[in-house]
């Protein structure tokens, strides 16, 4: 396993206006190893990857790649590719409307004339050898996200890559798909490829990785063999503090286990939308935190979207504070004091080019109405207040939100909804793809809001996070509500067995 280094980055520095994203960072990758790159948001992981792949030019430092005696300069993704460095991003960057083989060979053939027969045959051979369940002539869009990702990896492998970077590849995969991806990664490792694995899932790191490099605030914390670094220590290193915060959360959980028969804030009967979910019943009480759980695609997001009127609602009745109301579009829900933080932050949440301030006041502004804009001073006041309250890291309130890190963008969206003072807040995957520190902040905030009387529906793909925050869980399978758990039933095992179905 301990091969020689195939990639060495030394004393890398990179600054952006106002931020030193990387300060004197070293990174070494050996052939045939899977190397986790860990850190909170803003730690400099993506910047390091982007320097390595030529998206950004480093300010300072050296990069050595095996097979080149001298320092190499990487100025564009093409340079990186030539040196055998390939990246597979979180979002698929292939063309969904082309075939699998076309995607694997696009931009890489030199002749005008293509022998598609041969290309397809080659592609099939490679896919088979990597055990990827896809056909060369299949349209890429017809494959699952996981298979698409594997195709992207196959493309990289076929380009003789020595260094393969996987940036959050598992965030949209379910468990079996993750297993398949790991099998592929292990296979590549055996072939001597060095893999840099960027992820937020600790379990996965301990399942496949050999080494861990931890970054914090743009600086190198250290590089460790996996066996020398237990989880607790890893988390501590990433946060730069001991693990008090985690135990904090656990202790806070107690008061929310029991619930009294206070007023029902919201209830739905036979609600369903055009997304294919079966009609479901649902209620939430004042100060309660509950959640929808289920596998990816089980319909948990679709349920809350139906509640908020985000999708086309086809039927059912909803009551707010005991009174029947009609919610057919988001503004109806907002007027009834319901707020919804969507799952897809980039496409449904942020308004990229607008400033942090405008993004914060946005929902409140819409509620106030077209003819009553906030004055600049008021807007500033609210923005500053919430930037401080939620500890949003931004250069100023005028900064476009798209230049913030994911966790901070999420906090801005959260601020946007809190500013509307909802009595019912729906959070759909508020902690996806953000760092542990922010995750804990958000969990704490949810519990605090509930203790102040707000009702919260919390959706997360991490069960332990749900267990920590929710006092009742609605379990879904195949777009149908299959159970409800609370009190003593609220355990990991019970959730699993309910999701899986069958006899307990």
């Amino acid at each position, binding site marked *: 396993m301990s091969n020689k280094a195939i990639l060495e980055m030394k004393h890398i520095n990179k600054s952006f206006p106002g931020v030193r994203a990387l300060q004197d960072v070293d990174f070494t990758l050996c052939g045939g190893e899977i190397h986790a790159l860990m850190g909170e948001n803003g730690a400099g992981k993506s910047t390091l990857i982007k320097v390595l792949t030529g998206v950004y030019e480093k300010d300072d430092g050296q990069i050595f790649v095996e097979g080149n005696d001298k320092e190499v300069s990487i100025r564009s993704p093409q340079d990186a590719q030539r040196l055998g460095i390939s990246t597979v991003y979180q979002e698929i960057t292939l063309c969904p409307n082309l075939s699998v083989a076309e995607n694997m060979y696009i931009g890489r053939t030199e002749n005008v004339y293509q022998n598609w027969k041969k290309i397809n045959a080659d592609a099939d051979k490679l896919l088979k050898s990597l055990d990827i369940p896809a056909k060369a002539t299949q349209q890429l869009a017809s494959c699952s996200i996981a298979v698409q990702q594997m195709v992207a990896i196959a493309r990289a492998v076929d380009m003789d890559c020595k260094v393969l970077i996987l940036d959050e590849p598992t965030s949209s995969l379910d468990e079996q798909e993750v297993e398949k991806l790991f099998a592929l990664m292990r296979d590549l490792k055996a072939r001597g490829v060095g893999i840099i694995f960027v992820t937020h899932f600790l379990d996965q790191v301990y399942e496949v990785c050999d080494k861990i490099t931890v970054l914090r605030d743009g600086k190198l914390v250290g590089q460790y063999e996996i066996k020398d670094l237990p989880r607790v220590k890893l988390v501590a290193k990433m946060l730069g503090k001991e693990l008090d915060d985690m135990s904090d959360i656990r202790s806070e959980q107690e008061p929310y286990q029991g619930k009294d028969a206070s007023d029902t804030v919201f209830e739905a009967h036979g609600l369903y939308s055009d997304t294919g979910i079966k009609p479901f019943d649902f209620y939430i009480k004042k100060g309660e935190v509950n959640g929808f759980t289920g596998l990816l695609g089980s319909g948990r997001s679709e349920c809350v979207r139906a509640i908020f009127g*985000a999708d086309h609602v086809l039927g059912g009745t909803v009551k707010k504070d005991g009174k029947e109301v009609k919610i057919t*579009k988001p503004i109806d829900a907002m007027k009834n004091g319901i707020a919804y933080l969507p799952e897809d932050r980039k496409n*449904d949440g942020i*308004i990229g*080019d*607008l400033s942090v301030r405008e993004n914060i006041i946005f929902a409140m502004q*819409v*509620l106030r109405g*077209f003819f009553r*804009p906030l004055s600049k001073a008021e807007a500033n006041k609210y923005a500053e207040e919430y930037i401080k309250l939620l500890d949003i890291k931004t250069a100023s309130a005028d900064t476009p939100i798209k230049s913030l890190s994911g966790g901070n963008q999420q906090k801005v969206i959260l601020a946007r909804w809190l500013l509307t003072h909802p009595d019912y807040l729906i959070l759909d995957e508020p902690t996806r793809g953000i760092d542990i520190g922010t995750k804990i902040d958000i969990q704490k905030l949810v519990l605090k809001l509930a203790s102040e009387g707000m009702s919260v529906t919390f959706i997360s793909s991490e069960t332990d996070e749900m267990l920590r925050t929710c006092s009742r869980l609605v379990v879904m399978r195949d777009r149908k509500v299959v159970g409800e758990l609370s009190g003593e039933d609220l355990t990991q095992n019970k959730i699993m067995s309910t999701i899986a179905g069958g006899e307990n």
Partner: protein
Amino acid sequence: MENTAVKKSKGSDFLGKLLRQQLFIPVAALLILAIFNLIADPSFFKITLGYSSAGQPVLSGYLITILDYGSELAILAIGMTLVTAASGGQDISVGATIAIAGSVILRVLCGTDSRPETLQTSFLVAFLVACVVSMLFGAFNGILVAYFKIQPMVATLILYTAGRSIAAWINNNELPIISDPTFAYFGGFIPGIPIPTPFFIAMACVIVIALVLKFTNLGLYTQAVGINEKSSRLNGINPKFIKFLSFVILGLCVAVVGLIKVSRLSSINYSVIAKDIEMDAILAVALGGNALSGGKFNMAASILGAYVIQFLTTTLYKFDVQSDALPAYKAVVVILLVVLSAPSVRQKLSGLGKKLRVKEVA
């Protein structure tokens, strides 16, 4: 306030900040044109006080021409900026709908008689009718774009093609002439005021839009819809309506320009009136540094851009460029400006600036 702070820092920093300012593009273009004229022929800037045929004092000179005709473009640029920001596309039918608006004004004023002794009604009524008709045509475009999700350029191609025929049909293909001299005030001069009236009309429009942007959420909603439609909807906005609204507002701008246009002639020429004006209006938006793909916009930059476009046109006329050849010359300048304002080029430029600064230090 910001400017003085900037000036205190290093000169190259100042340049970098300036380059990132959106108003930089139209201002720079204006300066280049002004300097070019200054060198080529300073008489370009001469303004003389003369007397009109009616014996009224009027200013004349190239600058006044720019002020006069640039004002039409500025009014259109207001609407075009909103349409561009909300829909990410442009309305190419404004020239044709100006013909319709102008034709409606004449039809209402003259009735069926194309050489009326007395007008049927007041100018105000005629103008208001034209406003309603123009906004209806704007609404037609808006419905196609917002509710049927047709590409703006394709949707407005319909009226671009059919508009002038509709305009002619409104007046039974006759060319009514209005003999009342007061009708010429809107596109000419009001007695006693030596500055062309269109400029005052444009300023009134600018003030109105400035107030609207200040006292409503039109600006925020329009930009939000242009940047992220899905997200806007989830925050309670109706993106379709905002897009639709932008086309209706452009319709109103079209009616105002229509009034100016027919007032200039006291008549109409269906095939020539406001010909190709849509291109100039779109260019004004682009020259203002606004992305033609929608999203964020700067209204002041668009309005300034309109006057710069007119500056360019007038300069070309001054140097005896044939009106047929005009678009070709304009195209060259436009290519230059658009390329310069493209994000990738600006990035390279600022990178170049950075390197120069490093050399300065070394």
